[in-house]
């Protein structure tokens, strides 16, 4: 991978006025263009060389972008399936599909959203892209394993999608035995797909842990790590320790179907509840694989857009790790009514409450970060605030379903469905969208359209609450989940209809996000080096978009991730009243950030 050093950086010698591109956007350096096919390769050969340059690239940034494309595709597929599910429930009785089709559709929705979208969503896209830059490394520790993880993911996803052609799967994403043993659908293909994707998850986790442990730049102490890295670190622990268990569970399930080994089959003396224990031993920690990276993104957003140090940095950082570890001890709260022993139910309930506390601490700290800050209400911040609101609701309803007696009533109803959508979609997806808008200029070099961004945030907020808040009501009234029809509760029809309409609004909102992204890649304004005034290495020490090797020189870190006063000065110093300077990057930076001349406004500042 070693390449010849580029000519000495030119930014210091070219006069500012002569530049056609904003500072930090000089085309030669950025990873999107470099490495590229030699100029004398033309036509189809050039396209092929260009394709190979991406598909075989071990550059963590290109891998992150490829993941982003794949993950977004599956998000769209899962979303369309969700719309179909909601549409079917519009009327009592059959609306657009039969019961068997419906069961396959909601199963595929769950599987695609969980395994193909949410689990890799933030770590594999933004994590891959940003983690090495944020620690001040030139790549992750094992770049080739990183590329391998992408292809394993694609292979697993292909196997999973192929199972649709052989009849789909109708077990629900939980694969509960003995139903998953008896059903005539393509469980083996789907289990195999999920099994394969597990390796991808493990490789990503391994890469992150090793990179964080061994490849931090000089001066990047643990206490100077951005909170996003802390959360990715915690996530990786969970990925590594939990994923093998779902692996063996799915292998045993496959064996159960192929050979009838009987471990989970009551007809052979096996224990279906054991399957649930195995499954949730992975799948509950997996919930933290999904939400912890979102915590990290929100920390970055709250800090940057409040221009204020994230309140209680240590508490927020350590609570991520605490959640990751405690997360292994609460799987039984999915099984209060399943026939596990009452004693374990009590213990699991208690630990469940304990794990709620670190999450609560985070929320309070984030809110307090805005205190005496300078809150800039751009789209990413809007998404972050939406996250705070929705995640709080998701959290407190988690307390409800964690309470033993109440869960007896609420278990497996729409209340639970609404609860985890508030946490997963209101939490992770909002953070994903917020982070995407936040780092969009870093990734593409272009600014998204602020108006469209705010419109999408509004539509998503309205649509989301309309879809899922109503489901809390339906659930507490007793509407069970995974129901194709509700003949015994026809009075719920208006609520179902409102929820369905909400899902359409939500769909339109997400469509606006997509349009905004596609539009901005071609037509968006060129982004300045540090459009939001961030203080982490990705904003201060590398170009936008980043250089092929991230940094010309290994950065020397001299301040914390949210020490905005180091960059901008505090309110008490002489610079007060002057516009916050754009942080210029691009020149040799052995020591510290180079602060610009103090006259340049961020391009995006005009449409504040």
């Amino acid at each position, binding site marked *: *991978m*070693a*390449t*010849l*050093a580029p000519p000495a950086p030119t930014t210091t010698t070219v006069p500012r006025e002569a530049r056609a591109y904003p500072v930090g956007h000089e085309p030669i350096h950025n990873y999107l263009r470099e490495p590229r096919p030699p100029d004398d390769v033309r036509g189809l050969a050039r396209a092929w060389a260009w394709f190979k340059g991406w598909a075989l690239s071990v550059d963590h940034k290109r891998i992150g972008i490829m993941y982003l494309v794949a993950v977004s595709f599956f998000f769209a597929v899962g979303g369309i399936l969700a719309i179909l599910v909601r549409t079917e429930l519009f009327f009592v009785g059959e609306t657009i599909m039969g019961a068997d089709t419906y069961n396959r559709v909601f199963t595929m929705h769950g599987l695609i959203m969980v395994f193909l979208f949410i689990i890799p969503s933030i770590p594999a896209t933004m994590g891959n892209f940003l983690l090495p830059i944020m620690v001040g*490394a*030139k*790549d992750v*520790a094992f*770049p080739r*394993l990183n590329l391998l993880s992408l292809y394993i993911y694609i292979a697993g996803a292909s196997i999973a999608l192929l199972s649709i052609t052989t009849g789909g799967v109708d077990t629900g994403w939980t694969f509960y035995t*003995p139903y998953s043993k008896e059903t005539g659908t393509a469980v083996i293909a789907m289990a195999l797909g999920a099994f394969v994707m597990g390796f991808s998850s*493990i490789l990503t986790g*391994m890469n992150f*842990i*090793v*990179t964080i442990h*061994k*490849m*931090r730049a*000089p*001066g990047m*102490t*643990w*206490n100077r790590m951005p909170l996003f890295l802390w959360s990715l670190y915690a996530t990786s622990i969970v990925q*590594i*320790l939990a*994923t*093998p*268990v779902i*692996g*063996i*569970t799915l*292998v*045993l399930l496959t*064996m*159960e179907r192929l*050979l*009838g*080994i*009987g*471990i989970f*089959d*009551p*007809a*052979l*003396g*096996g224990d279906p*509840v*054991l399957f649930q224990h*195995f499954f949730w031993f992975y799948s509950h920690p997996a919930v933290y694989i999904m939400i912890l990276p979102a915590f990290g993104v929100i920390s970055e957003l709250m800090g940057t857009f409040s221009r204020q140090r994230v309140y209680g940095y240590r508490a927020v950082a350590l609570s991520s790790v605490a959640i990751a570890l405690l997360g292994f001890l609460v799987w039984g709260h999915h099984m209060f009514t399943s*026939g*596990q*022993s009452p*004693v*374990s139910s009590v213990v699991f309930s208690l630990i469940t409450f304990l794990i709620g506390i670190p999450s609560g601490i985070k929320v309070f700290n984030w809110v307090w970060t805005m205190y005496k800050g300078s809150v800039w209400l751009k789209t990413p911040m809007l998404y972050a605030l939406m996250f705070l609101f929705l995640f709080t609701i998701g959290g407190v309803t988690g307390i409800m379903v964690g309470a033993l007696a109440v869960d007896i009533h609420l278990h497996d109803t729409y209340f639970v469905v609404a609860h985890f959508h508030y946490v997963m979609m209101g939490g992770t997806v909002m953070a994903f969208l917020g982070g995407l808008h936040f780092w969009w200029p870093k990734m593409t070099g272009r600014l998204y359209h602020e108006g469209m961004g705010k419109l999408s945030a509004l539509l998503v907020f309205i649509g989301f609450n309309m879809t899922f808040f109503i489901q809390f009501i339906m659930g507490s009234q007793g509407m069970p989940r995974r129901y194709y029809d509700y003949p015994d509760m026809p009075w719920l029809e208006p609520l179902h209809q409102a929820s369905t309409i909400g899902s359409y609004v939500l769909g339109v909102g997400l469509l606006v996000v997509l349009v905004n992204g596609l539009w901005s890649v071609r037509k968006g304004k060129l982004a300045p080096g540090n459009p939001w005034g961030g203080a982490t290495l990705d904003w201060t020490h590398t170009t936008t978009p980043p250089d092929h*090797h991230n940094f*010309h*020189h*290994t950065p020397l870190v001299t301040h914390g991730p949210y020490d905005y006063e180091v960059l901008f000065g505090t309110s008490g110093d002489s610079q007060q009243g002057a516009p916050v300077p754009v942080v210029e990057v691009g020149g040799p930076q052995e020591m510290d950030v180079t602060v610009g001349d103090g006259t340049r406004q961020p391009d995006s500042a005009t449409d504040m």
Partner: protein
Amino acid sequence: MATPPIRVDDPQVTPAHSGDGHGHGEPEMLVGHDGNLHPSNRRFYFVSAEQQFEASKLGMWLFLATEILLFGGMFVAYGIFRVLYPELYEAASLQLNTALGAFNTLVLLLSSLTMAWAIRAIQMDNRKLMLQLLSATILLAGFFLVVKYFEYTHKFHEGIFPGSSFELNEDIDRVSDLTGATELTPIFVPSHGDDHGDDHGSETDGAEAVGTDAASETANGSAPLAGGPEAEAGEEKLGGDKTAIYSDRRAGIFFSIYYVMTGIHAIHIIIGMIAIGFLVFYGAKGRYSSVWYTPVENVGLYWHIVDIIWIFVFPLMYLI
């Protein structure tokens, strides 16, 4: 928590070995992106060779953690069913050939020794010895698999298949004599031909077996129904023969776990053999030396963990 300052670059690393894909023979010096010369087996994104070595090793340890969790799942399954059907496990494990298992244990331990020795050899720059020891490791692993093959085929001949196909039909007396548990006698009654004609599939059969294994339910925390109305009805319906058959099937679970566990372990052995094969291949080309032997070290770690897992499998399956 403060980290000592990391050297920005380490020009001290001597390039006393050949390249790793960029070329062979003469140590290749490349100009890195940072403008410094560095040995070609250090990748540009590492600051120093030491950092690279430590990173690979940590990565390997993390991978081994996933291996332990993977087998951990199976050990848990083993443990739970052992608690559910203790006598059955004891009886069933008598079907395994302890002598062969012990022999295999020795073979694996020996292979671990040769592996560790091989690492020592390359640390001493004794490439020839390393190659010999690695080859010996592969041979021992192959030997292990051959013994395993004979164990498997022998069991297949006896009719010991996993789960639903399980139909052991010999040694009835031996088993009951050894355990002294008379109620175990029907465990190994063949499951074919004595059903009362209406054989409507295993699913429904299983449901009817309800109530015959109240003991197992207590262990699971669900309500046992000893003497419950339906239990009595169930027993009437079933009769003695059926009880026997379901015990029989549960014995199949022991062998299911045995096959899955040893099977997955065998797959790990095969993967290890392939990995050591690569070491031999590249080692013969002279890629490794005392300066850089990270792959040898990492494969060695992997091999030890595979060995250690067997150390646990052997007593659990064969001895107790």
